[in-house]
């Protein structure tokens, strides 16, 4: 045992010794220690440097509120992890941690020079500096600021750990495993409610679990012993799930909460191999009980940030939970009774302790016991400074004036190696406010408390402002009974004894004989915000807490102001002479404690990063060297490079082959909707802009679907299979939305129609064969069908059989070539595809991908919804007036086509563009202008599709241009970074304007 490991406890296994490294030096701790407790046991307090001034900083707390002891784990590894709190990480064999924000080391840090120049770099200095000269902005200031910004080092390799997600549902979720959480969970579970109890520590019990003072008794048992019994009892309850090492990160609307469970962070490298590291719980709870407790406040005085200065309650936890004393000569500085428990504990273990209390006097049971033990108390006093660079070695105290606004009398120096401070308690209302709850301010002890409870959410215990043991138990019992409609409980007649705090005195900024401008009274320890900074911000006109926060960076560190926000508010209120409650608080945003990216992402990494949809012919494409592109979630063959071709070369070859002989495309991804019912024709009339009443059985028709606003929504070919039966195709990306929209219309707007929709997108595989030899290939495959134009004209379909299997052949074309699409049940898709390839061998059939398809259709001026349209194009804008029926009574979007805005002649309209230099290919998305000398330059449109056409031996582009219809033949400019490209507006059909090839 070291000098600081002074006793054994039930929570640390001192038979299980663990070695670990801190800043490269090997130390030893025990199973059950945190990194912080093990470091303190080894006499280490200096663990890092502050962000701005690089002041030496030590461990200050024992929980998630820790502002100083944030470490880099596995610093030398590519998988290093920054900003891990030493107070939260459990010790494991082989743990390697390093201090952050210092160079070359934590004891001697070059950045410490900032502390010397601190008068010149107050809050907001960076808003006023770095202004001149302008030429420095990008080359000097930005790199400098970027280099100094941020805490810790990011890993440079992908995280190999496994993370998981899990959805859970419960009747009651209890957040917090302290005494009020345990009471709540027990009441809930014993009343047959499916209950989950969550706590971020490895053991339940909060601070009561190590409470040994005999003043605090429940049913004649010391509170700790009573609570251990309760914990043992709830562990047996069948409908209670207890999750320790689990921290609620966010509380969203409708009782949807996110919690992170650490599953293997506490295990050594060997033990955790193959285990899930962290799991994100997505919890839906019918009711939530918030029992998150309270966090002790620091006190704000000169040099309150030295290593060896901790929160008093943390000293108590290190002592009674971990068996470690933070110092051998302790001073407790307080404004309340709770810190006296710490002094009593230290004294009873034979450790020197003194108390400085800003109150004039108090008469509680705890104080009587303290005085009985002979502990020296300095009443009505304050600390005016602390001393010691790398660790505190003494303090200076003075008496307070009557009203507490000044110090008076002699300076008294006291030597010490540890200072505990306690400025009262702040209820943890984060969860309450994240869920939408409002707060009230209680003047007596200056705390924000939940204003109201809802039917499905309450706060209990100290998170609801109850700090005395009897209050906590009685009021938690009463509140939960009412909340869960429970008649009686074991605690109704509980006998509770405890000390009652009678005197309160709070001074947000303790007075000093040194002026505020010259002392360092820290409020936000991680971001180095001082009381002076707050006052400076106010002098400069910032009044709102949100503005002061951002100007001074108070509360913006990784601890999100858990220790600092209340003091900032208090000092603002005092300075502005307003009531603190009227200022409100900053917004409590999730996450409550930082989440790893791994936890957020879960297993959606690597091959599970995104959903993948594959067509029945996917394997064939893979075997034939296809490159794929993502279209929606589909993997579509993009192009098929041969002999080291690049994409351009492949596309040129594929498109030539399709025009010269035959090409084949996997079109299985197109959305397919089976439409049946006696009103199917009327339904199509209402859905599409053109007329469908006269479409004969066996014929196909192209349709354009609009939104209610008259803008193009989707398009596709629909085939009349039978009298009351159609097969609609949609765009690949729009399939699900179109089905949803149509179903919505049928259920809400047109319930009178006898129409039934069924998605068959995945049921059919589709092979599309195009080119002048496509007919010959089809003849080889379907010898019993006459493929002449009379028997099988363009825009018609036939039922057929191949190898005895039913299929449908549509003669439709998206390339402008003579084309056929064959639909067959998906399980035969691959076999059909191979048959088509075999049949086409004599005609050099060439598989082509989506890039070639885009080129071929652009040559013909066929639009792609979503590429040539963007939700602001009407059919008239697309120069597709021909598809809008003037005779139909109505269709979706019709009325909007006659609004003044949609009828404007100068709307952006689809045009073709030809570059003056035929080999210059425009960039898709490039802006188009009339001229570029008059500034500001008017952007009149943009390029939507652009390719080099091997069939036309020149570049072609589709674009949308203001008043484009009337600009045909005019010259326009496309300014690019390195050149301005001259273009001429043309017809958007570049190839085979008379559709001769369709019927070739």
């Amino acid at each position, binding site marked *: 045992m070291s000098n600081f490991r002074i006793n054994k406890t039930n929570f640390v296994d001192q038979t299980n010794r663990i070695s670990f490294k801190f800043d490269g030096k090997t130390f030893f701790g025990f199973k059950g220690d945190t990194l912080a407790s093990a470091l303190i046991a080894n006499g280490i307090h200096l663990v890092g440097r502050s962000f701005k001034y690089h002041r030496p900083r030590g461990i200050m707390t024992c929980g998630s509120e820790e502002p100083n002891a944030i470490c880099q784990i596995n610093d030398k590894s590519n998988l290093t992890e920054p900003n891990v709190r030493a107070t939260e990480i459990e010790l494991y064999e082989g743990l390697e941690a390093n201090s952050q924000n210092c160079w070359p080391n934590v004891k001697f840090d070059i950045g410490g020079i900032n502390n010397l120049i601190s008068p010149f770099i107050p809050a907001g200095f960076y808003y006023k500096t770095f202004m001149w000269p302008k030429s420095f902005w990008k080359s000097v200031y930005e790199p400098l600021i970027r280099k100094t910004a941020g805490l810790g080092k990011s890993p440079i390799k992908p995280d190999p750990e496994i993370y998981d997600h899990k959805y859970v*549902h419960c009747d009651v979720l209890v957040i917090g495993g302290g005494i009020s959480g345990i009471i709540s969970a027990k009441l809930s579970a014993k009343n047959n409610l499916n209950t989950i109890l969550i706590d971020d520590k490895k053991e339940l019990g909060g601070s009561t679990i190590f409470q040994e003072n005999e003043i605090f008794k429940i049913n004649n048992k010391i509170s700790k012993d009573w609570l251990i019994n309760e914990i043992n009892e709830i562990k047996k309850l069948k409908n209670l799930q207890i999750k320790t090492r689990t921290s609620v990160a966010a509380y969203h609307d409708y009782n949807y909460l996110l919690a992170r469970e650490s599953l293997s962070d506490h295990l050594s490298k060997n033990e955790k191999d193959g285990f899930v590291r962290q799991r994100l719980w997505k919890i839906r709870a019918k009711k939530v009980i918030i029992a998150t407790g309270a966090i002790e406040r620091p006190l704000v005085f000169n040099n309150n940030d030295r290593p060896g200065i901790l929160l008093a309650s943390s000293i108590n936890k290190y002592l009674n939970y971990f068996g470690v004393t933070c110092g051998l000569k302790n001073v407790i500085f307080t404004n309340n009774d709770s810190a006296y428990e710490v002094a009593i504990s230290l004294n009873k273990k034979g450790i020197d302790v003194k108390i400085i209390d800003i109150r004039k006097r108090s008469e509680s049971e705890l104080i009587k016991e303290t005085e009985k033990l002979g502990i020296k108390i300095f009443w009505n006093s304050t600390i005016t400074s602390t001393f010691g660079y790398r660790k505190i070695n003494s303090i200076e105290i003075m008496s307070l004036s009557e009203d507490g606004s000044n110090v008076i009398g002699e300076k008294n120096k006291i030597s010490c190696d540890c200072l505990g401070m306690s400025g009262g308690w702040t209820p943890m209302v984060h969860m309450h406010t994240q869920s939408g709850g409002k707060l009230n301010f209680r003047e007596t002890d200056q705390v924000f408390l939940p204003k109201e409870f809802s039917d499905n959410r309450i706060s209990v215990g100290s998170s609801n402002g109850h700090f005395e043991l009897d209050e906590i138990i009685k009021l938690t019992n009463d509140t939960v009974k009412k909340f869960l409609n429970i008649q009686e409980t074991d605690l109704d007649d509980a006998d509770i004894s405890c000390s009652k705090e009678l005197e309160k005195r709070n001074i947000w900024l303790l007075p000093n004989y040194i002026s505020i401008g010259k002392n360092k009274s820290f409020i936000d320890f991680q971001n180095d915000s001082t009381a002076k900074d707050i006052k400076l911000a106010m002098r400069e006109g910032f009044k709102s807490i949100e503005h002061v926060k951002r100007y001074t960076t108070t509360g913006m560190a990784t601890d999100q102001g858990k220790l600092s926000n209340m003091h900032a508010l208090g000092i603002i209120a005092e300075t502005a002479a307003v009531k603190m409650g009227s200022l409100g608080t900053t917004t409590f945003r999730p996450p409550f404690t930082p989440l790893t990216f791994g936890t957020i992402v879960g297993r959606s990494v690597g091959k599970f990063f995104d*959903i993948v949809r594959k067509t029945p012919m996917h394997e064939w494409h893979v075997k034939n060297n296809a490159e794929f592109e993502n279209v929606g979630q589909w993997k579509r063959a993009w192009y098929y490079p041969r002999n080291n071709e690049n994409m351009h070369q492949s596309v040129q070859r594929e498109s030539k082959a399709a025009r010269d002989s035959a090409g084949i495309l996997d079109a299985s991804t197109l959305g397919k909707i089976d439409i049946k019912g006696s009103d199917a024709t009327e339904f199509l009339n209402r859905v599409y802009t053109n007329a469908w009443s006269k479409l004969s059985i066996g014929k196909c028709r192209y349709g354009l679907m609009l939104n209610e606003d008259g803008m193009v929504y989707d398009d596709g070919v629909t085939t009349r299979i039978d009298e009351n039966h159609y097969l609609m195709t949609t765009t690949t990306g729009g399939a699900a939305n179109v089905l949803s929209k149509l179903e919505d219309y049928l259920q809400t707007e047109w319930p009178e129609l006898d129409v039934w929709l069924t998605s068959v997108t*995945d049921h059919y595989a589709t092979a599309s064969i195009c080119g002048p030899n496509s007919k010959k290939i089809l003849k080889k495959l379907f010898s019993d069908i006459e493929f002449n134009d009379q028997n099988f004209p363009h825009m018609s379909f036939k039922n057929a059989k191949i190898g*005895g299997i039913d299929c449908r052949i549509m003669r439709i074309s998206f390339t402008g070539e003579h084309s056929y699409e064959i639909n067959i049940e998906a*399980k*035969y898709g691959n076999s059909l595809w191979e048959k088509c390839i075999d049949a086409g061998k004599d005609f050099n059939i060439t598989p082509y991908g989506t890039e070639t398809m885009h080129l071929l259709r652009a040559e013909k001026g066929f639009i792609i919804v979503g590429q040539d349209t963007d939700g602001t194009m009407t059919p008239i804008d697309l120069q597709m007036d021909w598809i809008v029926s003037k005779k139909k009574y109505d269709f979706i979007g019709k009325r909007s086509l006659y609004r003044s805005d949609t009828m404007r002649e100068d709307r952006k309209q689809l045009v073709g563009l030809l570059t003056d230099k035929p080999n210059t290919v425009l960039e898709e998305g490039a802006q188009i202008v009339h001229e570029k000398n008059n500034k500001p330059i008017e952007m009149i449109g943009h390029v939507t599709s652009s390719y080099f056409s091997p069939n036309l031996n020149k570049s072609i582009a589709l674009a949308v241009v203001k008043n484009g219809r009337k600009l045909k033949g005019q010259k326009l400019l496309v300014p690019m970074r390195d050149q301005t490209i001259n273009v001429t507006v043309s017809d958007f059909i570049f190839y085979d304007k008379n559709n001769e090839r369709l019927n070739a």
Partner: protein
Amino acid sequence: MLDIKLPEFEKKVYPDLELSLLEPSYKINLRGKNRDFFTKAGKLLSIMLPIESNTSANIKNINALWLSPDEWLIYGKDIDKNLETNLNNEISKLKYGSVTNVSDQWVIINFKGKNIFEVLSKGSPFNFNNFKGKKNVVVQTLLNHVDVILHHQEINDLNLFVRKSFSEHLWLWINDSSRFI
């Protein structure tokens, strides 16, 4: 002749969980809502289509899953091939509703074992607390962001329907999830 290509999912066994492919299976989507529709469907399937939401009915090798007040999924391993024709003739052609073969639209993955819902809860927001204690219940939900239909036919014996194009991805995800039960 054309070759049939089904998903190549080998049976997998994990602690208290067995995964297997239930293909080829016959699947028909039935839609309709008038009395004649119910009469015809009941007669041809020898089953009363379930009208209580999220339930199923079954007889011998035919299962009927409630999908919405006017939509059912009929499925089974060895269904008479004439069933579709008969349903078409008696329902579709008489304008009582619609009958659509969706055998290749969906792929069925069978789950067996006590850990079914442990795996499903990793990717499905649905509350299985009551569902897992009942048989012949159905739910349409998401699993790892993919639309699925779950048919809990017997306690700890569940058929999952996923669209064919998603099936390989989901199968891999389910197997990966099963490693961390």
